[in-house]
């Protein structure tokens, strides 16, 4: 399967989309402009799907599809041609696409899969009473999490319980994905495969392999967050990594606002510019389901904005239309986000 065809899934026949914004979203670059594009294109869940995607590879694939007439370009934006739509439909049956992947819901899924494999290795070696082994290379923070987790377990039962939870998880996957993912298991006298070896065994390209790994770890997380009672061990392993969709800094800003601090005071306290704090608010407006838009958009501001924009499709609004209104970009973008969310 040609890897560049995956790109077809990121574009639409009607909407012009900016490839650079999509690429940044896939890589996990969290700027308001990228996040807004993700919202506008209905691609937000793909955040951080391919953090190591080389820019030149993305560009190369894009060029190939443009040359092949599957995509067309106007200025900095791209959309599917009729041929592109047909190719996408034809390819759909064969492609392995992320279904459970949810980049903001499970921001720390990579740390989780590191923890999962290290914890499994530690339990396997423990069960075999072997103390001399090379633990999987993970970050110091992940090592610490796994150690803490292990201390909480009943050592006489942990192996049996962990095996059972693994069985439930792998059993819930399509066989081919489960076989693939299990190649990365390691433990006493069991070495893990490299991604290259596992890809070869499954007959997948490196890109497909990477997408499957992401999909599987998010599939696991979906299972063990929605059915925590069936997965007490692994839910506990995930628990310290679970966080909301916001960046740490944005979450802090929001928490301080909720405590009643003003932006100016937060700015002084945290030594962060007010504009940066406003970007945190925009991030929250995009990512949170219950953002209090009314707090930051007064009725009069809302009226001015409505007067200017309500007869226009949301994606055609321009900030310079507000030139004489005295409103700032923050209010413009916030209103745009609200309207985009309302109109889907």
């Amino acid at each position, binding site marked *: 399967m040609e890897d560049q065809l995956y790109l077809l899934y990121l574009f639409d026949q009607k909407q012009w989309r900016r490839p650079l914004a999509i690429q940044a979203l896939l890589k996990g670059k969290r700027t308001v402009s990228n996040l807004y594009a993700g919202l506008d294109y209905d691609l937000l869940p793909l955040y951080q799907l391919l953090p190591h995607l080389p820019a030149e590879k993305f560009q190369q694939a894009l060029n190939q599809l443009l040359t092949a007439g599957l995509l067309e370009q106007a200025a900095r934006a791209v959309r599917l041609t009729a041929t592109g739509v047909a190719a996408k439909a034809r390819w759909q049956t064969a492609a392995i696409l992320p279904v459970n992947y949810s980049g903001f819901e499970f921001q720390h899924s990579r740390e989780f899969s*590191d923890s999962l494999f290290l914890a*499994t290795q530690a*339990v*396997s070696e423990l*069960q*075999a009473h072997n*103390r*001399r*082994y*090379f*633990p*999987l*290379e*993970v*970050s*110091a*923070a992940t090592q610490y999490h796994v150690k803490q987790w292990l201390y909480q377990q009943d050592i006489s039962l942990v*192996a*049996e319980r*962990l*095996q059972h939870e*693994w*069985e439930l998880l*792998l059993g819930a996957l399509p*066989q081919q994905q*489960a*076989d693939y*993912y*299990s*190649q990365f*298991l*390691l*433990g*006493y*006298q*069991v*070495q*893990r*495969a*490299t*991604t*290259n*070896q596992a890809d070869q*065994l499954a007959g997948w390209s490196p890109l497909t392999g990477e997408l499957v790994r992401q999909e599987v770890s998010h599939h696991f997380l979906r299972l063990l967050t929605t059915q925590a009672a069936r997965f007490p061990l692994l839910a506990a392993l995930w628990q310290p990594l679970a966080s909301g969709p916001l960046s740490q800094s944005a979450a802090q800003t929001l928490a301080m606002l909720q405590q009643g601090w003003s932006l100016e005071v937060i700015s002084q306290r945290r030594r962060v510019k007010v504009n940066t704090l406003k970007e945190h608010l925009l991030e929250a407006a995009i990512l949170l389901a219950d953002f209090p838009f009314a707090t930051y958009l007064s009725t009069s501001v809302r009226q001015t904005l409505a007067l200017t924009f309500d007869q226009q499709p949301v994606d055609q609004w321009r900030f310079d239309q507000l030139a004489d209104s005295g409103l700032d970009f923050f209010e413009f973008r916030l209103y745009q986000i609200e309207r985009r969310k309302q109109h889907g």
Partner: protein
Amino acid sequence: MVEAAQIKQVLQQRFGYTAFKPGQAEVIRAVLAGQDTFAILPTGTGKSLCYQLPGYLLSGQVVVISPLLSLMQDQVAQLHYLGEKRVLALTSTLDATTRRSSLAHFSQYKFIFLSPEMANQAPIRQQLRQAQVDLLVVDEAHCISQWGVDFRPDYLGLKSLRAAITPKATLALTATATKRVQADILAKLGLSATDTKQIVHSVDRRNIYLATEAVADDTAKDQRLIELCQQLKQPGIIYFSSRQKAEEITQLLQQKVTARVAFYHGGMASQDRFAVQQQFMHGKLMIICATNAFGMGINKADVRFVIHYHLPSNLESYLQEIGRAGRDGQQSIAYLLYAPRDFQLQANLVTNTLPDAALIKQYFAQPQRFANAAIPEIDLLKFYRQHGQDAATLQHLFAKRRDEKLLALRSMLAFLQTPGCKRQFILNYFTDPTKVTHDATCCNTTTPPDLAALDLYRPTTIADTESQQQNWQERLAAVFTTTT
């Protein structure tokens, strides 16, 4: 004074050995007696033990300056494997939180590994100055020498580091140093030749047969490589100077020789590198196609062959790399295949990492333009500029360094072309006084290697057993089974 019996006890209890390898005991006794020591021990003699063991008999800390991230990671992993938890590697891969907490608990670590660049950072120096460092180790000490082939400017800061932390003893370790490099190491560390105990063992590894073979071109080389991999006793390592070639040849060997081959290079994710190392250590993989990123900390005793597909950049690297064969003392072989255009290929590689005259000029004209460039050449220029050097001096310096690198590469060529004994050539190069008795187990100066006579021949292709479980149920059962 530490008693010999105490040393023996630690050797057995901590490391599980009953005897030392040549040179180890002498070095350990010297550093425990507070003696500054310079040791040249051949590859594969367990140089790490020379500072690991004293660590358990000294009350203070052991600080190890190490040139490579991968080497540090391997050494940390080795110590963890031995059950030692008080190990810290201060590397650029530490996240801010971990780094902060490591520095806050600095005194609790027994073994601290860091690069010379890290050791020159002010906050780290401050920590080191306050710490009680009993032993300062400079691993791969040849890197400190300007004449050394892998010189890095931050090594020049080690003399002042040593003065600042005043360790009870300093230990410089290397497997390869010419006379000139040896003198330079002492000078750059501020050690005097008279007060420093110098323990120099022969660099020769007699159980490694030295073979070189000229081939017409890359096609012929690939063919010959396939034959060798079919004939030679395994396991083995094949070294390349290009990542891409290592991957290509892996595929070729998978088709023609064995499924149990994988590539290894610095461009891979660290967990993939870990997986390859582990599979190789456990005998799941029989051949590794690697760049020089592989092997520094590899402690696999039964490697039977090391093949060089590309020309190493100098004799030091060659000796280091072939030294990964035959650590169990059994007969092994080093095979260097070379085609006529290999020299030029390597010459380009070794010189294009140095900043050329045009870049130096550009940089000094507008250094701020390069402020965010993450290029090693620029880092090098930045360092020298901060140390008050000007463009003209640097142009001269790097022109000289380029000549030295080419000279070092020519020593490889001279080795290939020597009409005499190849082993003797190497020993002479390192001014090693050992006189070689050339025979059929030495090198292929006179006759090609007789693999059968060397007991390195694999008579029939041993069938590959695919031991990796392929479905998840089996794999899971294997991980959670207690029987082996």
